[in-house]
């Protein structure tokens, strides 16, 4: 699932200032590591090693601790995402209704594996465990849009993908 980014880190000084400022303000908060990483991911979109290092410095904690937390939780991503983030629900309700096949089909169509991003940066594909719309199973999400009651037909999936630039 987790893949490390091979793309060069392209953070801006503004982003760094924003993160460092937040870290300085919240350093003393109990249990700060997770909120700090959530904030960092909000700013950068993902958590490359450079950003983890900033968090470690800002909180005055070993990088190993930060890395340990960043790799533990599925919400944290170590690789950048596409402009459009596809997430296929593989929760049980969706799975028994065939979301596994939809997930496979999308991998074929986009020619990428789970957790990867297309070379043009247009789509990244992930699977998730339950978005909580089990009544609409099987479900996939692209960015904030939810597509439910899917059949998994090629035409249907093509039409959905065609909506995104």
């Amino acid at each position, binding site marked *: *699932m987790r893949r490390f980014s091979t793309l060069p880190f392209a953070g801006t000084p503004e982003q760094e200032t924003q993160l460092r400022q937040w870290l300085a303000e919240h350093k003393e908060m*109990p*249990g*700060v*590591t*997770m*909120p700090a*990483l*959530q904030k960092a991911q909000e700013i950068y979109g993902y958590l490359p090693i450079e950003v983890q290092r900033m968090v470690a410095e800002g909180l005055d904690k070993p990088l190993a*601790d930060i890395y*340990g*937390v960043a790799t*533990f*939780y*599925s*919400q*944290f991503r170590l690789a950048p995402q596409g402009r459009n983030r596809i997430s296929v629900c*593989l*929760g*049980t*309700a*969706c*799975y*028994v*209704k065939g979301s596994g096949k939809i997930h496979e089909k999308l991998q074929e169509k986009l020619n990428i594996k789970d957790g990867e991003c297309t070379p043009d940066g247009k789509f990244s594909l992930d699977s*998730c*465990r*339950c*978005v*909580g*719309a*089990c*009544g*609409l*199973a099987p*479900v996939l999400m692209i960015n904030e849009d*939810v597509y*439910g009651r899917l059949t998994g037909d090629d035409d249907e999936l093509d039409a959905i993908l065609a909506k995104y630039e």
Partner: protein
Amino acid sequence: MFRSHVMICGGTGCTSSGSDKISAEFQRQLERHGLQNEVKVVRTGCFGLCALGPIVVIYPEGSFYSRVREEHVEWIVTEHLLKGRPVRSLLFDETVDGERIKSLDQTGFYKKQKRVALRNCGVINPENIDEYIAYDGYAALGKALTQMTPDQVIQTVLDSGLRGRGGGGFPTGRKWQLACADRGKVKKYVCCNADEGDPGAFMDRSVLEGDPHAVIEAMAIAGYAIGADKGYVYVRAEYPIAVKRLRIAIEQARDYGLLGENIFDSGFDFDIEIKLGAGAFVCGEETALMTSIEGNRGEPRPRPPFPAVKGLFGKPTILNNVETYANIPQIILNGPEWFASMGTEKSKGTKVFALGGKIRNTGLVEVPMGTTLREIVEEIGGGIPEGKQFKAAQTGGPSGGCIPAELLDTPIDYEHLSAIGSMMGSGGLIIMDEDTCMVDIAKFYLEFTVDESCGKCTPCRVGTKRLLELLEKITNGEGTMRDLERIEELAEFVKNNSLCGLGQTAPNPVLSTLHYFRDEYLAHIQDKRCPAGVCKALLVYKIDPDKCRGCTLCARACPSDAIVGSVRVPHSIDTNKCVKCGACMETCRFGAISKG
């Protein structure tokens, strides 16, 4: 005063199917017809019948509109709200009985339900504290603080027989009792577990989305009972609507002095903070959850010491699940006898289930303990769609088991479910039909636990992985009878030796399917066949020469040129070349292609 109320479901299910656009359209149409001061639009929590979403209910009539689309709104406004004639063709068909419109309580889905934890979901606007107060909200907190001692509160919860709704079933009152020593002398915490990790379960999310104040009120009551002044709600970051409503609710409660210092002039202080989880199933385990709130990797630790003695930040802590809390205010207000009058001998009250999978009425249901699975599947759930056969009901998610058709009359409570190799779990209830392969489902759950195992203890980290490999062997058609013995042996070992609940229950899906659906395992191993037609490696596609017209459609659809035959002559499939994608079967117009 408004003459009509338009209640629009704002739960995740209905929001996903576009209920916010419908709500905006109602507002627009009402203004167009000058009705905005007569009719009020309210975004509520979940009505339960997610399969028919987006749902709109119009009061005072209680007309239940299902699968509403934006273009329906103008019609509903001009016909129903302007002329007073409900649009029958858009109403939920079970409520339409000839000329008469039945109330919801008489429909199959709602008839056997009893809403305690969900009582306000779909009834009030969860973003407005006044509506909660109008439905007796915070009256229980007032009663506890002004008329009861902390020990009386604990005794009431004990007497009610309420047990943890997160899955374990530990008596809630007992948990509180264990943490009540040294009130006022040591710092203590009250935590709420809203890290609903079971894939396919959304009860807790629905309670937080539909009735967040009930959880806040209950946590304050718990704080008073054990002598804690600080609460944490640990909630999944993947539940944005729930988090937002909880934030709003906490702010409102603070403004009204229902959280903060000296609540109800009783000298009792209590406040709540939200901690966002980041997606780790193991954090549903109590010690792991607390480690996660502390900001670390959410790994569990051995017990004892129990959290009641040494929990969050090393202080005595109680942790209850969202649904457990949602019952508390009702118990305080109506008394323990009222609560204990529902349910079975050892399992009191009601239980919320997220009903999903191959069932007509997917959604959220709340039934008294002791209701049978058959009642839920056949009456409330409306049976299996497309005329298929029921195969199994799965409860307890990755920790639970699959229950076969012959046990459908089992009453649902903690004892009965564990006796048949499953468990109550948090309340996910997934229905499977003849198209579901039970070996594949066991593999699905194990993939999940392998993924989510935190890695701290070896039996779980290595054992679940080895179990998964054995199952993969079987679904690939390479399994032997010796592998079945190995699975059973290893499963028992993982169960008995893992550190926390995740590992201790991880083998349940394998063991229960092996117990009740052994013939399916045997078909995979001995006949190299997947009876449900799911396991790819075991599938063989065949063309029936009597049905095939030689139209060549399938040959053109085949990505690997495995189909041979000339025009108007029956085709055949070269199984050596076939990649089993199923494209031929989808394109065939004559139903000549079968798999098995």
